[in-house]
């Protein structure tokens, strides 16, 4: 039914191609072209040898690698028990706990960084330990979701069968459960590794100057040292490494993937032991999720070791004392961030929506754009920003001073998520629904409007909410592209927390709290609106 014999009722080819115009332009102009320019700069320049031979680079690469490996292993270890409990047991409030575990993953990196600055003792500030703890907190959701998704479909009778064959609890775990979970654990490990390898905000706030990842070092060279060529070289090194890891992961992943059909294996806890395990795990997990966030709020209300609303009250001005300015206006940064979020969301939803419609309508020929819009996901945010910085510096493309360049960067990061939310909805439309419309006299164009375009109404709210949350929290690309007087909230948080004074630091915590609440509200509203649409 997917072949050309069904072509009588297709949209005209020019119509389908027109859909690709906007997304292809956005991705081509602001992502692919900068990426090519970046590669060209590296290939043509003389800085490759100099950069790679620079003292200290080995240490940066080593730290990037080992903190990512340790963070990944620690996340797997910590996420294992909650993944088990949430996948295998039904209990009141289970959905809420799953949602709570997902919250840190949705939080902007600067919020997580600030929260752990507020929570951890000063002796841990600027250490690898702090970075790893925050990474675990940030990524537990990946393990709980991916490993849990597999665990919940392993039939209970399969482990029962192992028991009737004489396997003890540990033997069941070792010989049956672990081998079946391995692909999911591997997938989770790959995702966590990629996130922590390119970690920026968390490392910048918590790692201190002694512990930079490649991502932080690239940004430092580009923005503080003015060594754009060197930054470009490191970006390409990082890109090559990421591509290699992804290629390896894809090869290993293809082997031995197993699917189960049938009911989810979750049930109510039966014995006292099971009930204790569930209650204990839920309590500890919720505490681990909530305490860093509470610590952040508490710290925003502390000044000079005492409770104080001063940091909140003085949010409006950049002056600490009359005549002494910090150069950062916290309240203004909120306005900037909100404006950028609106623009980035509009671009991301428009480009992502049209891209989804094109990919769905063009079928096999849509694959190219499908891959194209996903690429920014595999590129670190700092690299995206850096590419734009070195590409748009000559007329007629001298856009570095244009304010809209930052939200465009945000949109690039958000488009893959928008497409991954919208496209499955389009693909889930039964072909016969379009056929029914056609037999009722609808032209291909009318059919498309009435069925395809209309179906995007429901998932639009979550897609837009996701895009807005990404824009509000985006730190990497923004760090490269930002201009003074137009700081976004994350940039302002980063600067304020880097200051020595008590008030600016407290203001940094206030802003991080504002960002946390803002992100939470947007995601919650998008979620609720999305749900209501589903019921209707």
């Amino acid at each position: 039914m997917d072949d050309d014999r069904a072509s009588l009722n297709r949209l005209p080819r020019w119509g389908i191609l027109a859909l690709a115009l906007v997304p292809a332009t956005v991705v081509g102009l602001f992502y692919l072209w900068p990426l090519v320019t970046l590669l060209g700069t590296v290939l043509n320049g003389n800085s490759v040898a100099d950069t790679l031979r620079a003292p200290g680079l080995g240490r940066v690469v080593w730290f990037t690698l080992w903190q990512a490996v340790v963070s990944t292993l620690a996340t797997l270890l910590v996420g294992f028990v909650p993944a088990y409990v949430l996948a295998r047991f039904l209990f009141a409030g289970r959905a809420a706990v799953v949602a709570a575990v997902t919250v840190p993953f949705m939080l902007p990196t600067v919020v997580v960084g600030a929260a752990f600055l507020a929570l951890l003792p000063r002796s841990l500030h600027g250490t690898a330990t702090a970075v790893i703890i925050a990474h675990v907190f940030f990524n537990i959701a990946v393990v709980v979701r991916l490993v849990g998704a597999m665990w919940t479909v392993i039939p209970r009778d399969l482990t029962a069968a192992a028991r009737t064959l004489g396997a003890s609890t540990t033997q069941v775990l070792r010989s049956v459960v672990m081998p079946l979970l391995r692909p999911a654990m591997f997938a989770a490990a790959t995702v966590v590794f990629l996130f922590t390898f390119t970690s920026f905000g968390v490392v910048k706030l918590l790692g201190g100057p002694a512990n930079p990842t490649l991502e932080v070092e690239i940004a430092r060279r580009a923005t503080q040292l003015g060594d754009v060529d060197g930054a470009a070289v490191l970006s390409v090194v990082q890109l090559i490494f990421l591509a290699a890891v992804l290629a390896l992961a894809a090869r290993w992943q293809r082997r031995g993937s197993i699917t189960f059909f049938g009911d989810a294996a979750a049930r109510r806890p039966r014995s006292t032991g099971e009930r204790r395990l569930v209650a204990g795990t839920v309590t500890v997990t919720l505490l681990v999720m909530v305490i860093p966030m509470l610590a952040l709020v508490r710290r925003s209300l502390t000044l000079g070791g005492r409770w104080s609303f001063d940091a909140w009250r003085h949010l409006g001005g950049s002056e600490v004392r009359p005549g002494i300015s910090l150069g950062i206006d916290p309240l203004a940064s909120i306005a900037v961030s909100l404006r950028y979020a609106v623009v980035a969301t509009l671009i991301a939803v428009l480009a992502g929506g049209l891209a989804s419609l094109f990919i769905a309508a063009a079928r096999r020929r849509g694959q190219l754009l499908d891959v194209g819009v996903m690429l920014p996901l595999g590129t670190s945010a700092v690299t995206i920003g850096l590419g734009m910085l070195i590409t748009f510096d000559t007329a007629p493309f001298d856009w570095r001073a244009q304010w809209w360049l930052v939200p465009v960067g945000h949109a690039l990061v958000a488009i893959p998520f928008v497409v991954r939310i919208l496209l499955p909805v389009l693909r889930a439309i039964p072909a016969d629904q379009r056929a029914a419309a056609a037999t009722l006299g609808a032209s291909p164009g009318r059919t498309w409007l009435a069925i395809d375009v209309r179906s995007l109404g429901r998932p639009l709210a979550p897609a837009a909410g996701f895009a807005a949350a990404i824009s509000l929290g985006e730190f990497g690309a923004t760090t490269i592209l930002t201009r003074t007087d137009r700081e976004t909230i994350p940039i302002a948080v980063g600067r304020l927390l880097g200051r020595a004074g008590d008030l600016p630091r407290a203001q940094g915590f206030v802003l991080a709290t504002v960002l946390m609440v803002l992100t939470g509200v947007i995601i919650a509203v998008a979620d609720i609106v999305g749900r209501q649409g589903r019921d209707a």
Partner: protein
Amino acid sequence: MLEAREISVRFDDRVVLDRVSLSVTDGEVVALLGASGTGKSTLLRVIAGLLVPDGGSVWVDGVDVTRVPTHRRGIGMVFQDEQLFPHLSVARNVGFGLRMQGASRVVERQRVTDLLELVGLTPLADRPVARLSGGEAKRVALARSLAPRPRVLLLDEPLTGLDRDLHDLLTGEVARLLRATGTTALLVTHDPAEAAAIADRVTTLAAG
């Protein structure tokens, strides 16, 4: 010798088994007949130790095993939907119980070879279980549960859901296998013809 004495099971105030007793002597094959919803499978789960009963006890060879965990009871089970381990080959599935006992590789290989021959699947030893037909999967499940020489073998509707020809073929095969291995077995089914064909003795579990 298997004995279930006055087994009672309640799920949330719903009485599934009310003081049910049953015994199977050594080498005997007993069929437990009853309509669906009469708690037949529940009784098997209690005997296997997969479910702790609210009352009553399970005895094997004169020993009370009601509190003994499943893996130390020596009671095997064939599940209705086979429950083959999807990550293991046919031979590795059949050898699973032997590995759990800590059998040597030589012993495992010999026993697996014997059993695959017995069920007629020798050429499929290295095949992934995902690529078995319905009948082949049933035979592997049978061979797997017989491999560790269980003191009692429980069969939970093992032939339900097969098409007619295959069902009739396997009915004869199960009867032959249980005799050939001298296995003490308890078969749960809702099909009187199947019960008569396989078992030495048929008992019925009434509803309620």
